[in-house]
């Protein structure tokens, strides 16, 4: 039986008249890497802030690491059990690495001997080679993110929330960061992560997709692909340059449940076998047709667009 790290039921969070999170329910098991996706303003960060004890839910049931959260009373207990790395860069640029880390430790009241041990372990964990007396402003951005991660897990939290941890860093640094995330998960930590990079999201055990404050999909990446595209997905490359009216004709022909432009190609998901045949009869000479395996990007575009219709 898997242990539950996070459980939310019918979570609602309102700011005045605006509903940022609308009736969201899900569970995250211990040791899971849980990806959290959605456009800006979909309610991801708000949900995370509730789960970190920074916002009190308007209604709904929230349980984090065995602590229920209905009012501000348990906020500090939750804060001591979770680590939060905000999407904003939260280290102090005019403090050294050492000072930054020590500052977080003293806010969390970590005993000095525990802190020294933890610090040594964690600097080794992120393989930090520079002197700890380096000013944070002199670090490359990838390394800043790693130090930021280090600060947020100093107190050895059970659940770690990472809100767009790899925004604006090089791809090599992103790769390294995800290795860190996965090795943390192997030690039994629950990781809750948001990202805009599909290759990163692909590495999550399960993915939740939010749109306009609601949860619209939740599954493993493979299952999401299967459930979103039960039939084959085709890539259509125009053989000659097509004008806007011709493309609009294809779109209006109601052959496809989804027909999205990718550069000058199209990813098309037919409504049915018959429709696909109709399409081929009419347009085969215009397109080079190839069956492809859907990517997560296809999935999300389809799901988000589908909701719009």
């Amino acid at each position, binding site marked *: 039986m898997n242990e539950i790290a996070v459980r939310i039921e019918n979570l609602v969070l309102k700011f005045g008249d605006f509903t940022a999170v609308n009736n969201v329910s899900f569970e995250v098991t211990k040791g899971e890497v849980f990806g959290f996706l959605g456009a800006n303003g979909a309610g991801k960060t708000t949900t995370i802030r509730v789960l970190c*004890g920074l916002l009190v839910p308007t209604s709904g049931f929230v349980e984090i690491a065995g602590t229920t959260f209905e009012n501000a009373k348990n906020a500090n207990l939750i804060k001591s059990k979770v680590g939060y790395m905000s999407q904003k860069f*939260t280290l102090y*640029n005019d403090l050294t690495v050492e000072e930054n880390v020590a500052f*977080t430790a003293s806010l969390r*009241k970590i005993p000095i001997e525990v802190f020294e041990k933890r610090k040594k372990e964690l600097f080794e964990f992120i393989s930090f080679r520079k002197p700890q007396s380096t000013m944070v402003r002199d670090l490359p951005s990838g390394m800043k993110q790693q130090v930021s991660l280090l600060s947020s897990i100093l107190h050895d939290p059970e659940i770690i929330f990472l809100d767009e941890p790899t925004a604006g860093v090089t791809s090599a640094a992103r790769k390294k960061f995800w290795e860190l995330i996965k090795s943390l998960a192997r030690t039994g930590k629950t990781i809750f992560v948001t990202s805009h990079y599909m290759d990163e999201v692909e590495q999550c055990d399960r993915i939740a997709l939010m749109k306009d404050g609601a949860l619209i999909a939740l599954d493993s990446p493979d299952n999401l692909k299967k459930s979103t595209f039960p039939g084959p997905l085709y890539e259509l490359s125009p053989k000659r340059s097509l004008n806007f009216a011709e493309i609009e004709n294809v779109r209006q022909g109601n052959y496809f449940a989804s027909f999205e432009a990718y550069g000058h190609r199209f990813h098309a998901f037919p409504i049915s076998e018959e429709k696909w045949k109709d399409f081929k009869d009419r347009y085969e000479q215009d397109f080079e047709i190839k069956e492809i395996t859907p990517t997560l990007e296809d999935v999300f575009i389809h799901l988000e667009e589908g909701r719009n219709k």
Partner: protein
Amino acid sequence: MKFSRVMAIAKKEVFHIIRDPFTLALALLLPVMMVSIFGLAIEFNVQNIKIAVFDEDRTTSSRKLLDTLSSSHYFLINPAKNQIEAIHLVDQQKDRAALIIEKNFEYNLFSGRGAKAQLMIDGSDNSTVGSVLSYFGSMQKIAFEKIAAKKLPTDVHLKTRFIYNPELNSRWFIVPGLMVVVLAILSILLTSLTIAREYENGSMELLLSTPVRSLEIVLGKLTPYIGLGLSAVLFVYIIARVFFEVPFLGNHFVFLTGCFLFLSTCLAQGLLISVTTRKQQISMQISMMTGLLPSLLLSGFIFPIESMPLFFRGLTAILPVRWFMNISRDVFLEGSGLYELKYDFLALLLICSVIVFLASKKFKRDVEP
């Protein structure tokens, strides 16, 4: 509340201060600058006023009048050849005023018809007009005593003596007020920047994600600035006593209590600004508007509150600077104690509590879920 967290935040804040050239410069240079500008350059006592004189009478009496004027250090006499030239000198702004003594001045004086002399003052500069008039009045009296070689029989003999500042030394008046201004600007500006910076950098998120309490953040952030503020007070105090030789007649404890109360009010005001705007740039502007301007213009520092229109007099009542200005001057020059200053202290205490309440409520709502 945990003391260790307060100290951790205070320590971090000290790092910020000593590593930020702007804050450091502001904290160190502002008091020095203010003291030099206000303490040395501003002079309300007008001396050596140039005055053009045409003496048509040329008698012993008229000369005695002129001697009296020139022997005081208030006037510098510039003789003119005729009436036209005297007026011309004022027109050209070479002289501030022109004195024309009519022919038969002495004759009229002793024959009892009343001697006439005309004084023309350049009215475009208000601040000297007042001085010329008041000096001239007293000079006139002395001159007539000399001319008549005995005291003039007057029914009422008014003798003026200034208490608390017998020489009406404007520095005695300015410097204790200067302390108020320095303290107000320094503390409002610096605190408003410090919290806005946390919001702007996003590091407020880091603070919030730890179990730190809002009171701990506030106390931790303010402690170094209280230190800075009090050292600015000490600095100006030493300058005032040693350099400007301003007497301190009151009780140091009363003064320190006032400083502390005022400092808390200013820090809370800075906090309120910062929590409301969350942007350093706007915080700085609002601090200047609500900190610098009122302390220079509406506190009684330079312009007396009594002569303000009713609306502004009412407005000054809600400004902490106005009350602390009174406290500072009265403690320095009059030696007033808590009893004499009870209304000022009460008003300051009231304003302080209101602002601290507002600031902490707003901050708490922001910080705690």
